[in-house]
Every structure is written in structure tokens, then in C-alpha cells.
């Protein structure tokens, strides 16, 4: 199993290389360049030439690419063209915010989705089942920015249960260690800040987690229904085991594989939702950063960001594949 994992990770290297190549040339295919984006209305020929020169943009493309590649191999991702900051620093500050959001939304999606799916399956055909499934259907069918705004209006403005936007209440912040707000606050001995950060996390996590939640609920329901009809479950029931034990012991365990698949796949598509969620909720994450970087033609930032997200995607799916073997002993990797 470990050699399998290692092989998969090694296969990541050529993938990343290819990605960096594709991103570099696609960004350069796009019209406009960073120098122009900075100078804007003031782009006189002299100023453009000077700025391009100072940014190293006046060299031939392939030379720029190989210089970049050389730097990357030395562990230097370069400085962002639009913000002067090292791309590695930019990403390391923003990625934890997105990770925190993504984990919270997956937790929400998994718990609520699985619970709703099981409950719905157990009450198959009743009005509870109907409502849950219609709810799940609406969840997958709603544009995420609409949902986000509705959540803000209802829970932040009308009811005042949660803060509107941001990661902390203004004036409250914590000196970062990991840049994970809740963890850092606890490590610094500030549970009040952690509580504040947690409250800020709820609405964006729900907005981002709704689609995966709905997918998981539907998936859980159908796989639980399938397993409930299987012989060994009937046997277990016939033996007089209480219904909840049957569900927990046999059904849940066996319905985990398809759920796991969904988790892996949805995690990959989270970034798309993250760009929108981060914009609505003023969440300082990597999704919005990448969007702005594409707009600024900041190819170093885009390349590094895409490579990072791609690695993460591959690794999450590797973990998912490895977990298959844990939940189903019939699956073996060699």
C-alpha cells in the first residue's frame, strides 16, 4: 500500500511540471500584461518599457519560463508581480483561511448530509423523506452567491446570530502561528478570539458546504436504501438487533465507500465555490487571491497557486483511495 501511495505521489511531479507549463503559456496568451495592468491609463511607451524591463518581462517567453523553472527547482516561487510579496508567503497566509473554510464546510456537509441521508432512508416514502430530498435538490440547484447573500440577510442582518463577514471582529486578531484562526487563538490562549473566529466561520462554511451536503445526502440515502435490502442486514434484523444498531453497524460502514468518493470529488470542486464564497464573505482566502492574480496577469502567483491546489486535489484523492481499503478489506493496492 505504501509503495502504491509513493508511486501516486511521484506521478504528481510530471503533472505539476505540465501544469506550470500550461499556466505560464496560457497566461501569456491572454491579452494584456502585468506592466500594463499596473500603469493603467498612464501607460506611456517609455514607462511601459521601463516597467517591463524592471520586471524582467522584456525577455523572450521561453527564457522567462526557464528562469522561472530554475527558481522553482531551487525552492523559490518568486515574487508576485502585483504585490511585491513572495508568492510563497502570499499563499501560506491565505491558504490556511481557505483550508479552514473548506474543512468546516466538509464537516458540515458530511455530518448534515449523512444524517439527513440516513434519516431520509429510514423514513422512506414519508413526508419527512420528501422534504429532506426536496431540500437536498434545492441545495444542489441554487447559485452559491445567491445562497450566500440570503444567509447573510437572514442570519446576520435579520436575526443577528452570526457576524456578517470577515474572519474576526475588527480590532480582534491574533498573532499568527499556523494562520488557522481558531487553532492559533487557542494556541495563544485566547478562547474568546477562537469563539469569535468560529462564529465568523459558520455562515461561509454553510454557504460553501451546501452543495456537497446535498450531494452527500442523496448519495447516502440511495446507498443506505440499497444496503437495507441486502441479506445480511435482514439477517441482523431477524436476530432481533435494535434498528439503530443495524443501521450503525452494518449500513453505515458499507455505505461509506460511495460517500467517501463524493467527499473526494467534492473537495476538489470546493475551490470554485470558494472563490465566490470568499468574495461574498470577505474571507481572505486563496480562491479570491487566484482570481485577482489571473486578472492582474500575475503568472507566478497563478502558477504556484494552481500547482498547490492540484497537489492538494491529488493528495485528497489518494487519501480517499487508501481509505477505501480501510473500509472494504476486499480492495487491495499493490
Amino acid at each position: 500500500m505504501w509503495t502504491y501511495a509513493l508511486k501516486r505521489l511521484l506521478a504528481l511531479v510530471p503533472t505539476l511540471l505540465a501544469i506550470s507549463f500550461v499556466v505560464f503559456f496560457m497566461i501569456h496568451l491572454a491579452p494584456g500584461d502585468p506592466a500594463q495592468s499596473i500603469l493603467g491609463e498612464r501607460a506611456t511607451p517609455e514607462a511601459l518599457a521601463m516597467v517591463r524591463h524592471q520586471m524582467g518581462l522584456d525577455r523572450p517567453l521561453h527564457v522567462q519560463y526557464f528562469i522561472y523553472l530554475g527558481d522553482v527547482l531551487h525552492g523559490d516561487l518568486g515574487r508576485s508581480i502585483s504585490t511585491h510579496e513572495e508568492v510563497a508567503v502570499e499563499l501560506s497566509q491565505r491558504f490556511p483561511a481557505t483550508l479552514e473554510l473548506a474543512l468546516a464546510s466538509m464537516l458540515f456537509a458530511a455530518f448534515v448530509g449523512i444524517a439527513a441521508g440516513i434519516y431520509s432512508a429510514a423514513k422512506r416514502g414519508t413526508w419527512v423523506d420528501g422534504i429532506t430530498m426536496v431540500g437536498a435538490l434545492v441545495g444542489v440547484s441554487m447559485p452559491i452567491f445567491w445562497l450566500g447573500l440570503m444567509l447573510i440577510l437572514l442570519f446576520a442582518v435579520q436575526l443577528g446570530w452570526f457576524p456578517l463577514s470577515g474572519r474576526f471582529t475588527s480590532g480582534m486578531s491574533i498573532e499568527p502561528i499556523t494562520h488557522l484562526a481558531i487553532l492559533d487563538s487557542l494556541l495563544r490562549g485566547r478562547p474568546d478570539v477562537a469563539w469569535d473566529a468560529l462564529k465568523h466561520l459558520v455562515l461561509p462554511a454553510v454557504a460553501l458546504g451546501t452543495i456537497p451536503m446535498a450531494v452527500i445526502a442523496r448519495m447516502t440515502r440511495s446507498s443506505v436504501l440499497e444496503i437495507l435490502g441486502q441479506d445480511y442486514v435482514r439477517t441482523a434484523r431477524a436476530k432481533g438487533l435494535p434498528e439503530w444498531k443495524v443501521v450503525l453497524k452494518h449500513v453505515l460502514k458499507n455505505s461509506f465507500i460511495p460517500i467517501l468518493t463524493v467527499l473526494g470529488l467534492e473537495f476538489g470542486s470546493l475551490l470554485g465555490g470558494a472563490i465566490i464564497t470568499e468574495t461574498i464573505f470577505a474571507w481572505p482566502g486563496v480562491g479570491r487571491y487566484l482570481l485577482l492574480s489571473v486578472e492582474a496577469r500575475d503568472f507566478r502567483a497563478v502558477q504556484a497557486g494552481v500547482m498547490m491546489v492540484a497537489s492538494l486535489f491529488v493528495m485528497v484523492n489518494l487519501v480517499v483511495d487508501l481509505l477505501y481499503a480501510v473500509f472494504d478489506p476486499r480492495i487491495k493496492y499493490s
Partner: protein
Amino acid sequence: MTKSLRLRRVFASISLVSSLAIKQLPILFLISLLAFAAGCGKGGSKSGGAAADGPTFVMGRGGDSPGLDPAHETDGESHKVCDNIYDNLVQYTDSTTEIEPGLASRWEHTPDNLSWTFHLRQGVKFHDGTPFNADAVVFSMARQDSMFHNPFNNVGGPYTYWQSMSMGSIIRDVKAVDDSTVVFTLRHPNAPFLANLAMNFTSIVSPTGVKKWGPEFFKHPVGTGPFKFEEWVKDDHITLARNEGYWNGTPAIARLVFRSIPDNTVRYLELKKGNLQGMDGIAPDQVQPIRDNKDLVLLTQAGMNICYLAMHNDKKPFGDPRVRQAVNLAIDKKAIVETLYRNLAVAAVNPMPPVVWGYNKSITPYPFDPARARELLKQAGFPNGFKTKLWAMSVPRPYVPEPQKVAEAIQANLKSVGIDAEIVSTEWKTYLDKTQAGEHDMCIMGWTGDNGDPDNFLFTLLDKTATRLPAQNLAFYRSEKYHQIVVEAQNESDQAKRTALYEQAQQVAHDDAPWVPLVHTSALFAQPRNISGFHLHPTGKERFYRVRFE
């Protein structure tokens, strides 16, 4: 408060233990959450940062600052933070573009206008303790141009404004005569030079700070201004703390926080909830609700900008001045100002805004007269109009918050005189690229003034030398007569004579009509009623040092 203090102590000890036993973190986490849920209920937490005697002012805006080194930054979001960290030798008064003493308490120049001596304020210190003196002034200028051979010329990226304001071709030398006297020597007399020294890029930076941080200075800014840099969480907030003993008066607020909230609606909701003490980037449609809100005040300021419709004079029908005048007559600026700008702009008459001196008030604007426009088109040989392309950017710019809607309104106006304009829309970078290459027939564009000099509008945007690609003169207007006037005005040092020349240039531009000058927008700022002491500035500077809570 005492309860939460006590609890905080309890949890401080718990988390001390927790750092020893990381494995139990999740459990401790749950416990602390439960305890707090029970202990404080909702909203029970208070800021526990370092002691701050005085209120915190939170300002909401659409995006983060790329950096805080005033010489490198080119965007408004960076400048508005720098405005509060740094000072200049001279500065604009609180609400006009007139120049007043800043770090230089007085100055004089030789009769030939070539040598300018600045006498510096005594006893001023940078936030890092470095004394402010003539060397700091020389350093702040010299690092921006390679001709001075300053070792920091290659550090931190391009000095874009120094380039685009042509400082290298204006200044011959900057020398420290003694600790408190600096002399600038110019290559030729240049009227706008003094105003350039009030712009962000000529702010005085701490030489010690630049030497210490090198390329990282942009996130460790050190100036002499009313606020010192304290903290920056990218894309979230920048916190500044007041500079005790600031030479121009210690600010009343203890902290100034700039929060980035990209979505307009959400930012407005935060203001309404009382979480912000100020907000810019207000959409025209938010104006009425803000005005109707008893707790909020809307500040407006006529801006130093223009939004215009350039007609490419080299492209087929627009070579004929009658066609260009017809377009001027066909567009209902009043409706655009009233509906799309919600009266937060004034209809433009000339290619420069009235807040800049030298504005020609005697020009009669083209009226909205579609019948006359059709007549002119008929005379020009287009009785049935023609087809053309109208370019509009897809992103808001300071002078046109809703470019698409403006384009649609113009499109409808043109349609009524028979001109069939197809809207071509691209995002900003592509848009600049293609319009500056002259690919458009007509395009919506604009300009925000730099230093408050008419030259910065009339020469920069309409002189024939500005048609060189990438062009600034998007009308590709090549009048020889106009060229001679604006160049003469550049070399003239007497302001009264310059005024006369610029008024003449505006008349020529009015008759030739290379553009439809559309509007000059006003800057908007919303704040709660209990805040005072903040003025919007024509240049867009946002200085908060006189702000107070009532």
C-alpha cells in the same frame, strides 16, 4: 467584563497545559467552546488587544493594498493607507489642491525657476526613531532614479510614478545643503513640479527603514505621518496605531483599521450594522438608502477626474468634425448623470474638471438635440446613420462605476439618431491594450488627475504627441493648432498666462470635438453621524488624522 477576564485567565492556564499536551487539543477545544457558549452567550467577547486608550476607527473598502511603499505603489487602495503613514515636503490643503507647507516649513526659488530651496521642519522623527532631516529627503528621491546611483534603485520593483510623471527629465539634482535644507535643481522651468512633491510617490520614507527591510519595506512601512503601521493580514485588514506627538497634532483615534470587503452590498450592510466608521466604493444605487438613513452621513466631493467618449478620428465616419459634433448633440448627458450616476457627477463640458484651475467657464456646452444631430449627420453624408462599435470596459473605474450601463444608455441615444453602435466589452487589461492600440471606433475612457495641473489633462490626453502607441490620446486627435497652444503653456511659468493659454486650448477642443466629455464624478464616502473631522479630497487622498467620535 470581569467575568470574561476571569475566564480568560482560566483558559490561559488551560491552553498553557494544552501546549504541553497537543494530543488533547480537540477535547480542550470543545470544552472551551462549551464553557464560552455558556459563559458569554452571544456577542459576549470583547477585544483584548494591547491597551488602547481611545476609539478604533474601522474603514471599509473594496480591496486590499498591494503594498505600502509610497514610491512603488500605483493604486488608490495603497495610496489611501500611505496617506496616513507618510508626509511630504509640501501637501495639499485639507479640501483643495492648493499647496501648503508639510515637512518643509517654507521654500523659495531662484528667479529663473531652476533652483528650489526647501527649509525643513525641526525635531520631527520617523516612527522608528530615526530623525527626519535633509538626508532622508535626498534618499527618498534618489532611490527612485538610476541617475543618482542609489543602491536601493534596484530594490522593490519599478518606481512607476517617477517614470510616468517624467521626474527624471525634470530634476537635474537633489542636494542636502545642511541638516535642514535641501535644494532641488531642475533641467528646465516646470510649473507642475511643486505639485508633484505633494503626490504619494514623493513621500519621505525612513532611510533606516528602507535599508533595514530592503524589498520587504512595502510591508514594514516607516514614515513620519500621523499613524504608525501595526499589523497587516492580507486581504483582511491593515491596522495603524496613532503616532503620539505627531508634529501636526496627535490624532484623537487610537487605531485606524482598513478592512477589505469586496462585495458592495456586504460592505454597506456592515456599515449599517455599525461595524464600520467609514466606507468608500459606494455604488450609485446605495446613495439614496444612505441618505435616507438617520444614522448615516454621505460625504461627496467633486472629483479631479473625467469620463469621456473618445471617437477615433482616423476611423471612417469620425474623421468628419460634423459627425463628432452630431454624436455630442445626440447624447443625453443629463439623463446619464441623473439616472446612472444618481446626480453624483456633473455633466462635463471641457476635457478637464472644474476643480482644476484654468477651466474655461465661458464655453457653451453642446445641448442634447437629436434633431440637430440628425441634421449634421445628413450634411456629413449619413442621412441613414451608420454602423459603428462602441467599446466599454467590463469593470468599474473610479470615473465610471457602471461602464456597461453607461454604454447601454449611449447606445440607445445613438440609435435614436440612426447610429447603430454595437457594444464591445472586454475586461480591463484587454481593454487598455486594445484601445491604446487604437482598435476601437469609439470608446469610453477616463482619467484621474495626478497633481492638479491642467497640463495633466489637456496635454496628456489630447496632444498629438500622445497618439504614439500605446496611445494616451484615444481620439487620435492631431490638431497642430492645439499642439502649439498646450506646448507653449508647458514652457510658460506665469500662471495667468498659462490660464489664458489653457482656456484657448479648451475652446479649440470644443470646436473640433474629438471627444464627448461625459461626466466628472464625485467621490463618495459614508460614515455614521457621530464621526467628524474627515474631508474627502479632490485628489482622492483619505487622511484620517483629524477624525473624532462624538
